[in-house]
Each structure stands twice: as C-alpha cells, then as structure tokens.
C-alpha cells in the first residue's frame, strides 16, 4: 500500500471535505455506509491466532474464520444480534462507567475538534462524540424507553451488519488516547467506549491481526514480540556487549534471579528494535551506575499489554503474569520501563483486576530511601519517577555536554500523561541530562498532548496513510519547534511512540529523530572506570 506523497496528503488534509473546513455533510450520519478499501482498514486477525487464543484458559475468542472487511458478507454467527445485545447488557451491568457514558453526553461538541483522527481525516464519524454515538444509538434502541418508543427521533437505531462494519471501521480509527476526555465537561472517557466496541466485536470473531498476534505471542512466550527466554536473554546481553564497546565498562545483567530487590519490566520492543534498543542500553547503564539490585525476567518479559486493546479478559491475564513473577522471584517491588499503555493498565485497572499486590512492599528506592507512596497499591514505580528522584538526591554523575549534539523536545506519551499524571518527572530528568531543550506549543503537550496517531495497536503498515494523517497534529507541533528552535530529537516515554513517531517523523519531519528519555540519561552518565570513545551520536554511534 503506497502512501500518498507528502504534498498531496498535506493538501488533502487542509482542503478535503470536513466540518473543520465548513463542508456540510449532505446526509444524516446514519445513512452513510462505511466502505472498506485497501489502506483504510487493518488486516483481520488470522484464523489460527484467534483459534489459539480461544483455546487458552481464561480467554474467549469465538467464531474464528478467514474473512476480509472488503467482503459483503462478514460471515457473522447466526445469532450475532443476540450476542451483541446480550454482550452490551452484560457490560452495562458490569461497568457502571459505561452506563453513565451512554447516558450523560449532551452532545455539546467540545470533544469534536480535539481528536487527531478527526483533524487528520476530516471524517465526521471520527469526532469522539459521534464515535460514541455509534454505540449509544444501539444502546438507546434496546435499553432506553425513549429509544424504544421514538426510535430514530430519539437518536436510536437497530443494530445491523452495517452497524457492525461501522463499529469496526471507527473503533480502529481511535487510539484510546483520551485527549477528547480531557476537554469533556462531563469527563466521559471515550476510550472506554472504544474499548467496549472492540470487546463486542471480538464476541463475533472480529479483530485485527496486529493486535491479536502480539496478544497470542505474549500469552505464549511472555512478550509481544514472541521472544523466547534464550532469545530475550541473548538480546539483552547483546546490548551489554554494545555498551562495553562504547564505554569500556562490562555490565552483567541477571535474569529470573530470586531474591533480587527489584524486578524490572519494560516493553519487549526495547530489546528488539531501534530506537528502543538505545533506551534499553540507557536502563542498563543507569542501573549499573547506581548499583541497583535488580533482575530482568524472561517470563514477565513484556511491559506492554495489547490485552487493553482487545478485551478485559486478556488484559487481566497478561497483566497478572507481571505480579505472578514478582511473587515467584520474591522481589520487593516492580520497576517499570518507558512503556505507554502499561501504565494505564497498572494505574487504572490493575488494582481491581488482579490486586491488591499485598505480597509486595511499597516501592522504596534503595539508593535514596524515597518511598513512592503513589504506588502504594500497585507496587510498581515508573522509571522516570525513579530517575527523577535519583537526580534530586544527586545520585547520578552526568556530563550533559555528551548530549550537546541534540536539540530535544518532549512528547508526553498519552497514557503516562493522561492516565497517571506523569508530567513533571520526565522534564525534570531531561533538565539534568540535556542542555538544549524546547517545549512544543502548550496545547499539544502535557494533559493536552497529541497522540502519535498509531497507538492501541494501530501501528501496522497497511494503514500508513491513516497513521500519517492522524499523526499530523503531533508532527505539526514538532515542525514548529524544529523551525523555531532547531529541534532535532523528539523524546518520549513509550515504546509504541518510539516505533510510530519514527515513521511519522521520517514522513513529515525527516530531520528529527526519536528517542526514549533513558537513552539520553544513559548517554550522559559518567560510569566508574569508563574508557569511552568519541561518541558523536551517543549510544547510537557505530564503532
């Protein structure tokens, strides 16, 4: 699927029909069917992946089949309508939040132009209010008196195969980033609406491969990439070899070590793909520098949790292995790496799904003695909080000038920013390791940060144009600081970001690189006994 040339796409975003340009749709939204064509949908989950997941304990992924969104007939199970209505009823009873979100929207439209997908595609159904309305209309029809009596007059409609197709289209053009929620006067979490729509679709065997394959990998090997224990260990050791080449210091990380004080968990992409690899090298250097008593795990070898993008069952199961491993190894607490959605799962869902983790201790930095009371329940602390605390207590020796080849800005990764309020710590760390730093415009950072455009498992290549469109608001803010201040490095604290912003930058702002914050920390650290070569590109230098 070739992606449109930059000039074409920029013009199309600005001039194409949308409410933002004053174009008024000619038909009611309920009368506009979705049309699937190559490039506007992610590939469906492979049948064998769905079958595998369905065969696993605690998971239900029924109705595996070969199908394509372009097919007229999606081969829905015979009683599909009953499945959907019962599924919705069950969730309305189980999640009080969903019931409230279905009832309390006044359609004020505050969310409409806050969505990066709406801004990039101009498609009215990508206004968060309308995306939620796709489900609300069915809710009204079957669960409210007004809807039952007045039907379409009350904004109600019956669920049909066309509605199912529409759900698939637009629940996979939402990254659950929750920027819209930050502007909603009622605080409706529209991500939870998308989550429920995706859950309902899975009941009919409808999902995408880029999400279900990582989920099945993670269930099977412990991580999304599918790295087996010996491979995971080899990869981390390979990074230690690289560090030795660059700095002259040998680091010997440990794996599955019982009795370590801390279990460290990060996204598996950090030990597999660039530029995450350099972030992982940063972790290794930092832990060596402060003498942390920690272990990696080849079982809990994934921070991320694509279960969040799938359904509650799989999210719960994948999250549980982190705690099971912490218990097995007898660590005191868990230190989490630069992952995005892991923190939404840990901070907002873990405690009720798998908690309380009362077999662990409240995280306490063995270096500074600081107790992280904010993690009293989950027993899991973010690497940026941990590192910021180390800097506050002068426990890290750095030479900031080592990062002088960079001019850095910071992308608040959606979930750490909006789901756990991690706003100051990454900036505090950056202040201590870089000399050249500039913020993007204020309505594009912190709580109002713009998504990378490819989160929630939408980081797959076949929808590249959609990704470049939905990432445009973020890219545009980067372009601003690039032109005004000469920024050439976009830092972030999320593995999906590291992968997707790299594609986004190479398309919209090709002179800007992408890195994790720990890469910059690792590059600035002055290790004891180091014999560091001239590293023009920091930890990325090839010797």
């Amino acid at each position, binding site marked *: 699927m070739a992606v449109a040339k930059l000039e074409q796409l920029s013009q199309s975003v600005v001039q194409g029909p949308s409410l933002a340009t004053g174009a008024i749709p000619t038909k009611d939204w309920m009368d506009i069917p979705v049309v699937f064509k190559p490039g506007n949908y992610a*590939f469906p989950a*492979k049948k064998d992946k769905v079958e595998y997941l369905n065969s696993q304990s605690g998971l239900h992924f029924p109705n595996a089949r*070969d199908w394509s969104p372009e097919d007229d007939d999606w081969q829905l199970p015979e009683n599909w309508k009953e499945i959907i209505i019962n599924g919705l009823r069950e969730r309305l009873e189980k999640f009080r939040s969903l019931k409230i979100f279905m009832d309390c929207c006044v359609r004020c439209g505050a969310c409409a132009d806050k969505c990066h997908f709406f801004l990039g595609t101009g498609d009215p159904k990508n206004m968060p209010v309308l995306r939620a309305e796709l489900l609300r209309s069915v809710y009204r029809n079957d669960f409210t008196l007004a809807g039952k009596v007045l039907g379409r007059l009350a904004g109600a409609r019956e669920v049909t195969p066309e509605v199912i197709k529409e759900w698939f289209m637009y629940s996979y053009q939402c990254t659950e980033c929750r920027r819209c929620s930050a502007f909603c006067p009622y605080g409706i979490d529209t991500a939870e609406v998308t989550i429920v729509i995706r859950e309902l679709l899975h009941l009919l065997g409808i999902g995408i*491969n*880029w999400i279900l*394959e*990582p989920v099945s*990998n993670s269930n099977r090997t412990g*991580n*999304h*990439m*599918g*790295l*087996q224990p*010996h*491979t995971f260990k*080899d*990869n981390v050791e*390979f990074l230690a070899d*690289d560090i030795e080449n660059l700095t002259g210091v040998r680091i010997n990380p440990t794996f599955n070590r019982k009795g370590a004080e801390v279990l460290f968990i990060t*996204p*598996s*992409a950090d*030990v*597999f*793909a*660039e530029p*995450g*690899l350099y972030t992982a090298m940063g972790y290794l250097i930092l832990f060596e520098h402060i003498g942390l008593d920690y272990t990696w795990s080849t079982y809990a070898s994934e921070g*991320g949790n*694509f279960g969040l993008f799938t359904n509650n069952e799989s999210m719960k199961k994948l999250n549980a292995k982190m705690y099971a491993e912490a218990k097995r190894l007898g660590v005191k607490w868990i230190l989490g790496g630069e992952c995005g959605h892991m923190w939404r799962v840990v901070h907002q869902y873990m405690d009720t799904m798998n908690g309380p983790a009362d077999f662990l201790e409240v995280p306490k930095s063995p270096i500074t003695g600081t107790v992280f009371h904010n993690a009293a329940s989950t027993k899991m602390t973010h690497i940026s909080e941990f590192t910021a605390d180390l800097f506050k207590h002068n426990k890290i020796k750095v030479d900031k000038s080592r990062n002088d080849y960079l001019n850095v800005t910071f992308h608040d990764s959606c979930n750490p920013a909006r789901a756990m309020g991690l706003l100051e710590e990454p900036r505090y760390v950056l202040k201590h390791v870089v000399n050249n730093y500039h913020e993007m415009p204020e309505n594009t950072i912190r709580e109002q940060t713009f998504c990378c455009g490819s989160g929630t498992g939408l*980081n*797959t*290549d*076949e929808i590249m144009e959609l990704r470049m469109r939905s990432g445009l608001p973020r890219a545009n803010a980067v372009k601003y600081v690039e032109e005004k201040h000469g920024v050439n490095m976009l830092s972030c604290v999320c*593995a*999906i970001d*590291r*992968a997707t912003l790299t594609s986004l930058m190479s398309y919209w702002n090709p002179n800007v690189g992408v890195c994790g914050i720990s890469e910059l920390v690792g590059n600035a650290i002055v290790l004891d006994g180091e014999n560091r070569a001239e590293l023009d590109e920091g930890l990325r230098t*090839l010797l």
Partner: protein
Amino acid sequence: MPTVEHNGKSFQVDEDGFLLKGMEEWNAEWVDYVKASEGISELTDEHQKVIDALQEYYKKNGIAPMVRILSKTTGYPLKRIYELFPSGPGKGACKMAGLPKPTGCV
C-alpha cells in the same frame, strides 16, 4: 488467503505477501519470485549469506534476529543490507527467507 504463482509453482501468502507457512514451504522458486518483486537484478553470495543467517537464527529462536545481530553475524552494516534488499531487512530479506513479519511495538 491469496495465492501467488511463479514459474509454475504456487504459494499461499498472507496480506503482506509473506509466505503463509513460512520456511516449511520455502524453496528456490520463492526466492526467485521475491527477487523480482523486490527489484533485485541478480542474486549474489551476499544475498545468500543474509538469507542463510536469517534462517539459521530463526530455527534457533523462532523469530527474526534484531537487525544489529544480523549485521554482526553477516558482517554487513545496515546500509549494505538496504543496498542488498531495498525494502530493508524486515520486509525484504525476511520475506525472501520465508520468515514471518515481527509484530508488537515495532
């Protein structure tokens, strides 16, 4: 799933054009087919070395190697691998070698 034909052989592929059954179905005709679609004019010993390295690693690990490991085992810097396989190590070389495409936060 789609099927592609080449030199009288047919191959089942996924939507990305990767061999559905992977190395199980892999053979010289497949290499020849990918060669054409990748725009590689002639298959050299260097190409073969990359393919061998990928397959050997995959047999031991069930996944493609990280690119740096591929560079180390073949001795080719990333730039050279891109010269050999214009679509890159993942989409070009892995496809030709019959490996699946990695997924996740990549």
